[in-house]
Protein backbone atom coordinates (compact mmCIF):
# COMPACT_ATOMS: atom_id res chain seq x y z
CA UNK A 1 0.00 0.00 0.00
CA UNK A 2 1.43 3.29 -1.03
CA UNK A 3 1.66 5.90 1.68
CA UNK A 4 0.16 8.43 -0.70
CA UNK A 5 -3.14 6.58 -0.79
CA UNK A 6 -3.06 6.05 2.95
CA UNK A 7 -2.40 9.71 3.57
CA UNK A 8 -5.20 10.72 1.28
CA UNK A 9 -7.58 8.26 2.91
CA UNK A 10 -6.77 9.54 6.37
CA UNK A 11 -7.43 13.08 5.23
CA UNK A 12 -10.69 12.08 3.60
CA UNK A 13 -11.78 10.17 6.68
CA UNK A 14 -10.92 13.01 9.03
CA UNK A 15 -12.46 15.72 6.89
CA UNK A 16 -15.62 13.85 5.99
CA UNK A 17 -16.46 11.82 9.09
CA UNK A 18 -18.65 14.63 10.49
CA UNK A 19 -20.53 14.91 7.21
CA UNK A 20 -21.03 11.15 7.08
CA UNK A 21 -22.15 11.04 10.71
CA UNK A 22 -24.58 13.89 10.30
CA UNK A 23 -25.98 12.40 7.10
CA UNK A 24 -26.69 9.19 9.02
CA UNK A 25 -28.00 10.98 12.08
CA UNK A 26 -30.55 12.77 9.96
CA UNK A 27 -31.91 9.52 8.59
CA UNK A 28 -31.69 7.01 11.41
CA UNK A 29 -33.18 7.62 14.79
CA UNK A 30 -32.60 6.67 17.48
CA UNK A 31 -28.94 6.06 16.80
CA UNK A 32 -26.55 5.68 19.68
CA UNK A 33 -22.94 6.70 19.41
CA UNK A 34 -21.64 3.15 19.17
CA UNK A 35 -23.93 2.31 16.28
CA UNK A 36 -23.04 5.60 14.63
CA UNK A 37 -19.34 4.80 14.89
CA UNK A 38 -19.94 1.42 13.29
CA UNK A 39 -21.88 2.90 10.43
CA UNK A 40 -19.29 5.56 9.77
CA UNK A 41 -16.66 2.85 9.73
CA UNK A 42 -18.71 0.82 7.29
CA UNK A 43 -18.81 3.78 4.93
CA UNK A 44 -15.10 4.45 5.32
CA UNK A 45 -14.25 0.82 4.60
CA UNK A 46 -15.80 1.27 1.16
CA UNK A 47 -14.01 4.57 0.71
CA UNK A 48 -10.76 2.82 1.50
CA UNK A 49 -11.45 0.02 -0.93
CA UNK A 50 -12.30 2.56 -3.63
CA UNK A 51 -9.75 5.21 -2.78
CA UNK A 52 -8.46 5.27 -6.34
CA UNK A 53 -11.95 6.10 -7.59
CA UNK A 54 -12.74 9.03 -5.31
CA UNK A 55 -12.92 12.03 -7.64
CA UNK A 56 -10.70 14.86 -6.50
CA UNK A 57 -13.27 17.46 -7.45
CA UNK A 58 -16.22 15.83 -5.70
CA UNK A 59 -14.86 14.02 -2.70
CA UNK A 60 -17.61 14.85 -0.22
CA UNK A 61 -20.40 14.18 -2.69
CA UNK A 62 -18.85 10.85 -3.61
CA UNK A 63 -18.53 9.83 0.02
CA UNK A 64 -22.08 10.92 0.85
CA UNK A 65 -23.11 8.80 -2.10
CA UNK A 66 -21.41 5.83 -0.48
CA UNK A 67 -23.21 6.56 2.79
CA UNK A 68 -26.46 6.72 0.87
CA UNK A 69 -25.72 3.33 -0.70
CA UNK A 70 -24.96 1.82 2.67
CA UNK A 71 -28.38 2.89 3.89
CA UNK A 72 -30.08 1.84 0.70
CA UNK A 73 -28.48 -1.57 0.84
CA UNK A 74 -30.10 -2.03 4.19
CA UNK A 75 -33.44 -0.57 3.26
CA UNK A 76 -34.33 -0.74 -0.38
CA UNK A 77 -32.80 -3.88 -1.73
CA UNK A 78 -33.89 -6.33 0.87
CA UNK A 79 -35.83 -4.54 3.53
CA UNK A 80 -32.88 -5.03 5.79
CA UNK A 81 -33.79 -2.16 7.93
CA UNK A 82 -32.24 -1.55 11.28
CA UNK A 83 -33.49 -3.33 14.32
CA UNK A 84 -35.30 -0.18 15.30
CA UNK A 85 -37.20 -0.28 12.09
CA UNK A 86 -37.78 -3.99 11.63
CA UNK A 87 -38.44 -4.91 15.20
CA UNK A 88 -39.95 -1.84 16.70
CA UNK A 89 -40.89 0.68 14.15
CA UNK A 90 -44.26 0.38 12.49
CA UNK A 91 -43.92 -0.24 8.81
CA UNK A 92 -46.32 2.58 8.16
CA UNK A 93 -44.52 5.09 10.31
CA UNK A 94 -43.10 6.92 7.36
CA UNK A 95 -46.52 7.79 6.13
CA UNK A 96 -47.97 8.56 9.49
CA UNK A 97 -46.99 11.47 11.65
CA UNK A 98 -49.02 10.09 14.47
CA UNK A 99 -46.15 8.19 15.99
CA UNK A 100 -43.56 10.84 15.43
CA UNK A 101 -42.97 13.97 17.38
CA UNK A 102 -41.06 16.72 15.70
CA UNK A 103 -40.17 20.27 16.29
CA UNK A 104 -42.26 21.38 13.33
CA UNK A 105 -44.97 18.81 12.75
CA UNK A 106 -46.24 20.46 9.61
CA UNK A 107 -42.80 20.27 8.03
CA UNK A 108 -42.58 16.59 8.78
CA UNK A 109 -46.04 15.87 7.47
CA UNK A 110 -45.28 17.74 4.27
CA UNK A 111 -42.03 15.79 3.89
CA UNK A 112 -43.75 12.49 4.50
CA UNK A 113 -46.23 13.21 1.75
CA UNK A 114 -43.41 13.41 -0.76
CA UNK A 115 -42.05 10.42 -2.57
CA UNK A 116 -38.79 9.03 -1.19
CA UNK A 117 -36.72 10.51 -4.00
CA UNK A 118 -38.24 13.94 -3.64
CA UNK A 119 -37.79 13.84 0.11
CA UNK A 120 -34.19 12.72 -0.23
CA UNK A 121 -33.26 15.42 -2.68
CA UNK A 122 -34.69 18.10 -0.38
CA UNK A 123 -32.85 16.66 2.59
CA UNK A 124 -29.61 16.50 0.64
CA UNK A 125 -29.92 20.17 -0.25
CA UNK A 126 -31.49 21.80 2.78
CA UNK A 127 -30.15 19.57 5.53
CA UNK A 128 -26.91 18.15 4.21
CA UNK A 129 -26.08 21.40 2.48
CA UNK A 130 -25.21 19.88 -0.86
CA UNK A 131 -25.33 21.96 -4.00
CA UNK A 132 -27.15 20.99 -7.17
CA UNK A 133 -23.83 19.91 -8.63
CA UNK A 134 -23.10 17.67 -5.67
CA UNK A 135 -26.59 16.20 -5.72
CA UNK A 136 -26.18 15.57 -9.44
CA UNK A 137 -23.04 13.60 -8.69
CA UNK A 138 -24.82 11.48 -6.11
CA UNK A 139 -27.86 10.87 -8.29
CA UNK A 140 -25.83 10.24 -11.41
CA UNK A 141 -27.43 12.99 -13.43
CA UNK A 142 -26.58 16.40 -14.75
CA UNK A 143 -26.48 19.52 -12.62
CA UNK A 144 -29.35 21.03 -14.53
CA UNK A 145 -31.45 17.90 -14.14
CA UNK A 146 -30.70 17.85 -10.42
CA UNK A 147 -31.69 21.51 -10.15
CA UNK A 148 -34.96 20.79 -11.90
CA UNK A 149 -35.73 17.84 -9.64
CA UNK A 150 -34.82 19.91 -6.60
CA UNK A 151 -37.08 22.70 -7.70
CA UNK A 152 -39.96 20.37 -8.45
CA UNK A 153 -39.53 18.64 -5.11
CA UNK A 154 -39.56 21.98 -3.34
CA UNK A 155 -42.69 23.00 -5.20
CA UNK A 156 -44.42 19.80 -4.13
CA UNK A 157 -43.26 20.33 -0.59
CA UNK A 158 -44.64 23.85 -0.56
CA UNK A 159 -47.93 22.61 -1.89
CA UNK A 160 -48.20 19.96 0.82
CA UNK A 161 -47.27 22.51 3.44
CA UNK A 162 -49.83 24.95 2.10
CA UNK A 163 -52.61 22.37 2.17
CA UNK A 164 -51.60 21.22 5.61
CA UNK A 165 -51.70 24.70 7.09
CA UNK A 166 -54.67 26.05 5.21
CA UNK A 167 -57.31 27.20 7.73
Amino acid at each position, binding site marked *: *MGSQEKTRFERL*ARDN*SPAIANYL*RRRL*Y*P*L*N*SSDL*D*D*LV*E*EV*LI*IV*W*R*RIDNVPADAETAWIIG*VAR*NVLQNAR*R*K*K*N*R*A*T*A*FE*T*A*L*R*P*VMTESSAE*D*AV*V*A*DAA*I*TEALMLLGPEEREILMLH*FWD*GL*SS*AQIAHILG*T*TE*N*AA*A*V*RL*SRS*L*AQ*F*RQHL*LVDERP
Partner: protein
Amino acid sequence: MSDFEFDAAERLRAANPVTDATYQHADFGAMMRRITKQPRRGALTFARGFRLKMASAVGASALVTAGGIALLTGLGNSLPLLELGVAHSAQTPSNFSTARPSTTPGAATMIFRLRPMDFVAGPSLSNTASSAPIYFEAGPSDPVTALEQISAALGFGTTTPVTTNNTDGSQWEITYANGAQLYANNPNGAEIDWTYTAAPCSDSSCTTGCVVTSPPSTSSAIPGPVTCLPDAPTYPSDTQSLALAQAIMSNIPTTLSFASPTVNQGDVSYTLQVGGSPTNTYDDFQFAADGSLSSASGIITTISTGDSYPVISPVAGVSTLQSQNASLGLGASSQPPLATQDSTTTTLAPTVVTLTSDVIVYEQYALADSRVAWLPTYQYSDDSGASWTVLAVDPQYVQVAATSTPTGAVPNGVA
Protein backbone atom coordinates in the same frame (compact mmCIF):
# COMPACT_ATOMS: atom_id res chain seq x y z
CA MET B 1 -40.33 34.06 -4.58
CA SER B 2 -43.36 34.75 -2.40
CA ASP B 3 -43.14 35.13 1.33
CA PHE B 4 -44.76 31.75 1.77
CA GLU B 5 -42.36 30.06 -0.61
CA PHE B 6 -39.42 31.63 1.14
CA ASP B 7 -40.89 30.69 4.47
CA ALA B 8 -41.38 27.09 3.41
CA ALA B 9 -37.78 26.72 2.29
CA GLU B 10 -36.43 28.41 5.37
CA ARG B 11 -38.65 26.40 7.66
CA LEU B 12 -37.40 23.25 6.01
CA ARG B 13 -33.85 24.41 6.47
CA ALA B 14 -34.57 25.27 10.10
CA ALA B 15 -36.09 21.84 10.67
CA ASN B 16 -32.72 20.25 10.06
CA PRO B 17 -32.52 17.77 12.94
CA VAL B 18 -28.73 17.89 13.09
CA THR B 19 -27.09 21.27 12.82
CA ASP B 20 -23.58 22.17 13.83
CA ALA B 21 -23.25 18.78 15.45
CA THR B 22 -19.74 17.74 16.11
CA TYR B 23 -18.66 14.19 15.61
CA GLN B 24 -15.61 12.38 16.81
CA HIS B 25 -15.25 8.65 16.47
CA ALA B 26 -14.67 6.99 19.82
CA ASP B 27 -11.28 5.77 18.67
CA PHE B 28 -10.46 7.27 15.32
CA GLY B 29 -6.92 5.96 15.29
CA ALA B 30 -7.94 2.38 15.97
CA MET B 31 -10.58 2.60 13.29
CA MET B 32 -8.04 3.85 10.77
CA ARG B 33 -5.69 1.03 11.63
CA ARG B 34 -8.47 -1.51 11.26
CA ILE B 35 -9.51 -0.18 7.91
CA THR B 36 -6.13 0.35 6.35
CA LYS B 37 -5.03 -3.12 7.39
CA GLN B 38 -7.68 -4.55 5.13
CA PRO B 39 -6.98 -5.32 1.51
CA ARG B 40 -8.51 -2.62 -0.62
CA ARG B 41 -10.19 -5.21 -2.80
CA GLY B 42 -11.47 -7.46 -0.07
CA ALA B 43 -14.93 -8.76 0.52
CA LEU B 44 -17.66 -6.34 1.38
CA THR B 45 -18.73 -6.25 4.96
CA PHE B 46 -22.09 -7.38 6.14
CA ALA B 47 -25.03 -5.11 5.84
CA ARG B 48 -25.43 -3.11 8.98
CA GLY B 49 -28.99 -4.24 9.39
CA PHE B 50 -27.83 -7.73 10.08
CA ARG B 51 -25.69 -6.67 12.95
CA LEU B 52 -28.31 -4.61 14.67
CA LYS B 53 -30.88 -7.25 14.07
CA MET B 54 -28.62 -9.94 15.38
CA ALA B 55 -27.96 -8.11 18.56
CA SER B 56 -31.48 -6.98 19.20
CA ALA B 57 -33.37 -10.05 18.17
CA VAL B 58 -32.24 -11.90 21.22
CA GLY B 59 -31.71 -8.92 23.42
CA ALA B 60 -34.20 -10.19 25.93
CA SER B 61 -33.47 -13.84 25.48
CA ALA B 62 -31.80 -16.09 27.97
CA LEU B 63 -28.34 -17.22 27.05
CA VAL B 64 -27.86 -20.93 27.20
CA THR B 65 -24.21 -21.45 26.52
CA ALA B 66 -21.25 -19.35 25.67
CA GLY B 67 -19.44 -19.75 22.43
CA GLY B 68 -19.52 -22.28 19.67
CA ILE B 69 -22.24 -24.51 18.41
CA ALA B 70 -23.53 -26.57 21.26
CA LEU B 71 -26.02 -29.37 21.48
CA LEU B 72 -28.91 -28.68 23.76
CA THR B 73 -29.94 -31.50 25.96
CA GLY B 74 -32.84 -32.10 28.25
CA LEU B 75 -35.24 -30.41 25.91
CA GLY B 76 -36.70 -33.54 24.41
CA ASN B 77 -34.53 -33.34 21.35
CA SER B 78 -31.07 -32.24 20.37
CA LEU B 79 -30.68 -29.35 18.06
CA PRO B 80 -27.70 -27.20 17.22
CA LEU B 81 -27.76 -23.95 19.11
CA LEU B 82 -28.25 -21.07 16.73
CA GLU B 83 -25.37 -18.79 17.56
CA LEU B 84 -25.93 -15.48 15.88
CA GLY B 85 -22.95 -13.43 14.88
CA VAL B 86 -22.25 -10.19 16.67
CA ALA B 87 -20.84 -6.90 15.58
CA HIS B 88 -17.15 -6.34 15.96
CA SER B 89 -17.80 -3.61 18.48
CA ALA B 90 -18.83 -6.37 20.86
CA GLN B 91 -22.38 -5.32 21.43
CA THR B 92 -23.42 -8.08 23.72
CA PRO B 93 -27.06 -8.31 24.65
CA SER B 94 -26.40 -6.75 27.99
CA ASN B 95 -24.68 -3.64 26.76
CA PHE B 96 -26.91 -3.38 23.75
CA SER B 97 -29.92 -3.31 25.99
CA THR B 98 -28.65 -0.21 27.67
CA ALA B 99 -28.33 1.68 24.44
CA ARG B 100 -30.16 4.95 24.44
CA PRO B 101 -31.01 7.41 21.74
CA SER B 102 -28.21 9.89 21.39
CA THR B 103 -30.27 12.94 22.12
CA THR B 104 -28.30 16.06 22.73
CA PRO B 105 -30.08 18.35 25.14
CA GLY B 106 -30.43 21.78 23.70
CA ALA B 107 -29.49 20.67 20.22
CA ALA B 108 -31.88 20.60 17.34
CA THR B 109 -34.47 17.88 17.65
CA MET B 110 -34.29 14.70 15.64
CA ILE B 111 -37.11 14.56 13.22
CA PHE B 112 -38.39 11.16 14.17
CA ARG B 113 -39.14 10.41 17.73
CA LEU B 114 -40.91 7.16 18.42
CA ARG B 115 -43.72 7.41 20.86
CA PRO B 116 -43.21 4.90 23.70
CA MET B 117 -45.31 1.85 23.13
CA ASP B 118 -46.69 -0.92 25.25
CA PHE B 119 -47.56 -4.02 23.28
CA VAL B 120 -50.57 -6.12 24.15
CA ALA B 121 -51.59 -9.43 22.54
CA GLY B 122 -55.07 -9.28 21.10
CA PRO B 123 -57.58 -12.07 21.75
CA SER B 124 -57.07 -13.60 18.33
CA LEU B 125 -53.41 -14.42 18.99
CA SER B 126 -52.68 -18.01 19.88
CA ASN B 127 -51.08 -19.28 23.06
CA THR B 128 -49.84 -22.41 21.35
CA ALA B 129 -46.16 -22.99 20.72
CA SER B 130 -45.19 -24.93 17.63
CA SER B 131 -42.17 -25.68 15.52
CA ALA B 132 -40.85 -24.56 12.17
CA PRO B 133 -37.94 -25.49 9.96
CA ILE B 134 -35.06 -23.15 9.42
CA TYR B 135 -33.31 -22.73 6.11
CA PHE B 136 -29.82 -21.99 4.95
CA GLU B 137 -28.66 -20.21 1.85
CA ALA B 138 -25.63 -20.54 -0.36
CA GLY B 139 -24.47 -18.27 -3.13
CA PRO B 140 -23.70 -19.27 -6.70
CA SER B 141 -20.31 -20.80 -7.31
CA ASP B 142 -19.83 -18.55 -10.32
CA PRO B 143 -21.25 -15.10 -9.56
CA VAL B 144 -20.17 -13.61 -12.88
CA THR B 145 -22.06 -16.23 -14.85
CA ALA B 146 -25.07 -15.73 -12.60
CA LEU B 147 -24.96 -12.00 -13.27
CA GLU B 148 -24.69 -12.59 -16.98
CA GLN B 149 -27.80 -14.75 -16.78
CA ILE B 150 -29.65 -11.93 -15.09
CA SER B 151 -28.40 -9.61 -17.82
CA ALA B 152 -29.77 -11.94 -20.48
CA ALA B 153 -33.11 -12.22 -18.67
CA LEU B 154 -33.36 -8.43 -18.60
CA GLY B 155 -33.05 -8.44 -22.38
CA PHE B 156 -29.40 -7.59 -22.71
CA GLY B 157 -26.73 -9.73 -24.24
CA THR B 158 -24.31 -11.72 -22.18
CA THR B 159 -21.27 -10.54 -24.03
CA THR B 160 -20.97 -7.25 -22.19
CA PRO B 161 -17.96 -7.60 -19.92
CA VAL B 162 -18.46 -7.74 -16.21
CA THR B 163 -16.21 -5.44 -14.27
CA THR B 164 -15.41 -5.89 -10.64
CA ASN B 165 -14.94 -3.66 -7.62
CA ASN B 166 -16.56 -0.51 -8.83
CA THR B 167 -16.83 3.07 -7.78
CA ASP B 168 -20.27 2.73 -6.27
CA GLY B 169 -19.19 0.02 -3.89
CA SER B 170 -20.56 -2.85 -5.91
CA GLN B 171 -18.48 -5.92 -6.54
CA TRP B 172 -19.65 -6.69 -10.03
CA GLU B 173 -20.99 -4.35 -12.63
CA ILE B 174 -22.15 -4.40 -16.22
CA THR B 175 -22.42 -1.05 -17.93
CA TYR B 176 -24.44 -1.17 -21.13
CA ALA B 177 -23.90 0.97 -24.17
CA ASN B 178 -26.88 3.16 -23.34
CA GLY B 179 -25.54 3.88 -19.87
CA ALA B 180 -27.80 1.47 -18.00
CA GLN B 181 -26.09 -0.53 -15.30
CA LEU B 182 -26.49 -3.89 -13.66
CA TYR B 183 -24.53 -4.22 -10.49
CA ALA B 184 -24.32 -6.75 -7.73
CA ASN B 185 -22.97 -7.29 -4.28
CA ASN B 186 -22.24 -10.32 -2.22
CA PRO B 187 -23.06 -8.91 1.19
CA ASN B 188 -22.83 -12.03 3.29
CA GLY B 189 -21.02 -14.57 1.20
CA ALA B 190 -24.18 -16.59 0.69
CA GLU B 191 -26.11 -14.64 -1.90
CA ILE B 192 -25.84 -12.14 -4.70
CA ASP B 193 -27.96 -9.00 -4.50
CA TRP B 194 -28.34 -7.50 -7.95
CA THR B 195 -29.74 -4.14 -8.96
CA TYR B 196 -30.49 -2.79 -12.38
CA THR B 197 -30.75 0.92 -13.05
CA ALA B 198 -31.76 2.35 -16.39
CA ALA B 199 -29.57 4.95 -18.00
CA PRO B 200 -29.67 8.24 -16.11
CA CYS B 201 -31.78 10.76 -17.90
CA SER B 202 -30.10 13.38 -19.97
CA ASP B 203 -31.05 17.02 -19.74
CA SER B 204 -33.68 16.60 -22.39
CA SER B 205 -35.24 13.43 -21.03
CA CYS B 206 -35.15 14.60 -17.45
CA THR B 207 -36.79 17.90 -18.19
CA THR B 208 -39.18 17.09 -20.97
CA GLY B 209 -41.99 19.58 -20.79
CA CYS B 210 -40.37 21.38 -17.88
CA VAL B 211 -38.24 24.44 -17.64
CA VAL B 212 -36.64 26.23 -14.73
CA THR B 213 -38.18 29.65 -14.91
CA SER B 214 -35.49 31.33 -12.85
CA PRO B 215 -32.23 29.43 -12.72
CA PRO B 216 -30.30 29.85 -9.48
CA SER B 217 -27.53 32.38 -9.52
CA THR B 218 -25.18 30.07 -7.71
CA SER B 219 -25.01 26.32 -7.47
CA SER B 220 -25.94 26.39 -3.81
CA ALA B 221 -28.92 28.68 -4.23
CA ILE B 222 -32.45 27.36 -4.31
CA PRO B 223 -33.52 26.80 -7.91
CA GLY B 224 -36.52 28.73 -9.07
CA PRO B 225 -39.88 27.16 -9.77
CA VAL B 226 -40.31 24.80 -12.67
CA THR B 227 -43.08 25.07 -15.19
CA CYS B 228 -44.20 21.75 -16.57
CA LEU B 229 -46.75 20.43 -18.99
CA PRO B 230 -49.44 18.24 -17.46
CA ASP B 231 -47.95 14.95 -16.46
CA ALA B 232 -48.52 12.06 -18.79
CA PRO B 233 -49.01 8.57 -17.35
CA THR B 234 -45.65 7.42 -16.09
CA TYR B 235 -46.27 3.72 -15.85
CA PRO B 236 -47.96 0.94 -17.79
CA SER B 237 -51.20 -0.73 -16.79
CA ASP B 238 -51.16 -3.44 -14.16
CA THR B 239 -51.75 -6.10 -16.79
CA GLN B 240 -48.91 -4.82 -18.94
CA SER B 241 -46.60 -4.53 -15.96
CA LEU B 242 -47.31 -8.07 -14.82
CA ALA B 243 -46.73 -9.46 -18.30
CA LEU B 244 -43.45 -7.59 -18.64
CA ALA B 245 -42.23 -8.75 -15.26
CA GLN B 246 -43.30 -12.33 -15.81
CA ALA B 247 -41.37 -12.42 -19.07
CA ILE B 248 -38.23 -11.47 -17.21
CA MET B 249 -38.81 -13.77 -14.25
CA SER B 250 -39.40 -16.75 -16.48
CA ASN B 251 -35.97 -16.23 -18.02
CA ILE B 252 -34.08 -16.05 -14.75
CA PRO B 253 -32.62 -19.45 -13.97
CA THR B 254 -33.31 -20.06 -10.30
CA THR B 255 -34.43 -22.69 -7.89
CA LEU B 256 -36.04 -20.11 -5.65
CA SER B 257 -39.76 -19.97 -5.06
CA PHE B 258 -41.70 -16.71 -5.20
CA ALA B 259 -45.20 -15.77 -4.18
CA SER B 260 -47.68 -14.45 -6.70
CA PRO B 261 -46.60 -10.98 -7.75
CA THR B 262 -48.13 -7.76 -6.55
CA VAL B 263 -48.31 -4.74 -8.81
CA ASN B 264 -48.63 -1.07 -8.03
CA GLN B 265 -48.14 1.74 -10.52
CA GLY B 266 -45.77 -0.14 -12.74
CA ASP B 267 -43.90 -1.75 -9.86
CA VAL B 268 -44.10 -5.54 -9.74
CA SER B 269 -42.83 -7.42 -6.68
CA TYR B 270 -42.28 -11.11 -6.17
CA THR B 271 -41.87 -12.04 -2.53
CA LEU B 272 -39.32 -14.79 -1.96
CA GLN B 273 -40.72 -17.83 -0.19
CA VAL B 274 -38.92 -20.47 1.82
CA GLY B 275 -40.80 -23.66 2.54
CA GLY B 276 -43.96 -21.99 1.34
CA SER B 277 -43.68 -19.16 3.86
CA PRO B 278 -43.04 -15.54 2.89
CA THR B 279 -39.77 -13.79 3.54
CA ASN B 280 -38.95 -10.12 3.78
CA THR B 281 -37.02 -10.32 0.51
CA TYR B 282 -38.32 -9.83 -2.97
CA ASP B 283 -37.43 -9.44 -6.59
CA ASP B 284 -38.76 -6.15 -7.87
CA PHE B 285 -39.30 -4.57 -11.28
CA GLN B 286 -40.30 -0.98 -12.04
CA PHE B 287 -41.45 -0.18 -15.55
CA ALA B 288 -41.74 3.14 -17.35
CA ALA B 289 -44.75 4.18 -19.39
CA ASP B 290 -43.22 2.85 -22.60
CA GLY B 291 -42.71 -0.57 -21.02
CA SER B 292 -39.00 -0.17 -20.57
CA LEU B 293 -37.47 -1.33 -17.34
CA SER B 294 -36.64 1.61 -15.08
CA SER B 295 -35.11 -0.31 -12.24
CA ALA B 296 -35.06 -3.78 -10.80
CA SER B 297 -33.47 -5.70 -7.99
CA GLY B 298 -33.31 -9.27 -6.86
CA ILE B 299 -31.45 -12.05 -5.17
CA ILE B 300 -29.44 -14.99 -6.45
CA THR B 301 -28.99 -17.79 -3.98
CA THR B 302 -30.00 -21.35 -3.25
CA ILE B 303 -31.99 -22.44 -0.23
CA SER B 304 -31.62 -25.67 1.70
CA THR B 305 -33.75 -26.91 4.56
CA GLY B 306 -32.28 -27.30 8.03
CA ASP B 307 -33.64 -28.68 11.27
CA SER B 308 -37.03 -27.91 12.65
CA TYR B 309 -36.88 -25.70 15.76
CA PRO B 310 -39.38 -24.99 18.52
CA VAL B 311 -41.22 -21.74 17.97
CA ILE B 312 -42.71 -19.72 20.79
CA SER B 313 -46.39 -18.94 20.71
CA PRO B 314 -47.59 -15.70 19.15
CA VAL B 315 -48.62 -14.48 22.59
CA ALA B 316 -45.16 -15.23 23.99
CA GLY B 317 -43.67 -13.37 21.04
CA VAL B 318 -45.54 -10.25 22.08
CA SER B 319 -43.90 -10.49 25.50
CA THR B 320 -40.54 -10.74 23.79
CA LEU B 321 -41.35 -7.71 21.69
CA GLN B 322 -42.33 -5.79 24.78
CA SER B 323 -39.10 -6.78 26.52
CA GLN B 324 -37.01 -5.71 23.54
CA ASN B 325 -38.89 -2.47 23.38
CA ALA B 326 -38.02 -1.72 26.97
CA SER B 327 -34.43 -2.86 26.62
CA LEU B 328 -33.89 -0.51 23.72
CA GLY B 329 -35.12 2.44 25.68
CA LEU B 330 -38.39 2.70 23.85
CA GLY B 331 -40.72 1.29 26.46
CA ALA B 332 -43.25 3.41 28.22
CA SER B 333 -41.23 3.55 31.40
CA SER B 334 -37.81 3.98 29.84
CA GLN B 335 -38.26 7.00 27.64
CA PRO B 336 -35.77 9.77 28.14
CA PRO B 337 -37.32 13.21 27.88
CA LEU B 338 -37.44 14.69 24.45
CA ALA B 339 -35.22 17.68 23.93
CA THR B 340 -36.90 20.30 21.83
CA GLN B 341 -35.51 23.22 19.96
CA ASP B 342 -36.39 25.64 22.69
CA SER B 343 -34.50 23.52 25.21
CA THR B 344 -37.65 22.51 27.01
CA THR B 345 -38.35 18.86 27.51
CA THR B 346 -41.45 16.80 27.33
CA THR B 347 -42.28 13.19 28.10
CA LEU B 348 -44.37 11.35 25.60
CA ALA B 349 -47.43 9.50 26.76
CA PRO B 350 -47.16 5.78 25.98
CA THR B 351 -49.34 4.29 23.32
CA VAL B 352 -50.89 0.92 23.99
CA VAL B 353 -50.60 -1.14 20.83
CA THR B 354 -52.91 -4.11 20.60
CA LEU B 355 -51.54 -6.62 18.14
CA THR B 356 -54.40 -8.30 16.37
CA SER B 357 -52.78 -10.57 13.84
CA ASP B 358 -49.57 -12.48 13.32
CA VAL B 359 -47.92 -14.22 10.41
CA ILE B 360 -44.68 -16.15 10.14
CA VAL B 361 -42.20 -14.32 7.94
CA TYR B 362 -38.68 -15.65 7.44
CA GLU B 363 -35.78 -13.26 7.77
CA GLN B 364 -32.05 -13.71 7.34
CA TYR B 365 -29.68 -13.97 10.25
CA ALA B 366 -25.93 -14.40 10.10
CA LEU B 367 -24.64 -17.19 12.25
CA ALA B 368 -21.35 -17.02 14.03
CA ASP B 369 -19.97 -19.80 11.86
CA SER B 370 -20.47 -17.55 8.81
CA ARG B 371 -23.52 -19.36 7.53
CA VAL B 372 -26.64 -17.38 6.73
CA ALA B 373 -29.89 -18.81 8.03
CA TRP B 374 -33.49 -17.94 7.33
CA LEU B 375 -35.26 -17.97 10.67
CA PRO B 376 -38.98 -17.66 11.35
CA THR B 377 -40.18 -14.38 12.81
CA TYR B 378 -43.59 -13.24 13.87
CA GLN B 379 -44.80 -10.24 11.97
CA TYR B 380 -47.51 -8.67 14.08
CA SER B 381 -50.00 -6.10 12.93
CA ASP B 382 -52.42 -3.86 14.71
CA ASP B 383 -55.76 -2.70 13.37
CA SER B 384 -54.19 0.26 11.62
CA GLY B 385 -51.96 -2.01 9.58
CA ALA B 386 -48.72 -1.02 11.30
CA SER B 387 -46.50 -4.02 11.92
CA TRP B 388 -43.67 -5.19 14.12
CA THR B 389 -41.37 -8.17 13.85
CA VAL B 390 -39.77 -10.40 16.45
CA LEU B 391 -37.75 -13.60 16.21
CA ALA B 392 -40.07 -16.60 16.71
CA VAL B 393 -37.49 -19.31 17.45
CA ASP B 394 -37.59 -20.40 21.06
CA PRO B 395 -34.89 -18.26 22.72
CA GLN B 396 -33.48 -21.32 24.44
CA TYR B 397 -32.08 -22.26 21.07
CA VAL B 398 -30.59 -18.89 20.22
CA GLN B 399 -27.72 -16.88 21.51
CA VAL B 400 -25.55 -14.05 20.33
CA ALA B 401 -21.90 -14.89 19.87
CA ALA B 402 -20.25 -14.10 23.17
CA THR B 403 -16.88 -13.14 21.85
CA SER B 404 -15.57 -10.45 19.62
CA THR B 405 -12.19 -9.64 18.26
CA PRO B 406 -10.33 -7.50 20.78
CA THR B 407 -8.28 -5.88 18.08
CA GLY B 408 -11.39 -4.80 16.30
CA ALA B 409 -10.48 -6.81 13.24
CA VAL B 410 -13.43 -7.80 11.11
CA PRO B 411 -14.26 -11.47 11.56
CA ASN B 412 -14.73 -13.47 8.45
CA GLY B 413 -18.15 -12.82 7.06
CA VAL B 414 -19.40 -10.74 9.93
CA ALA B 415 -18.27 -7.17 10.14
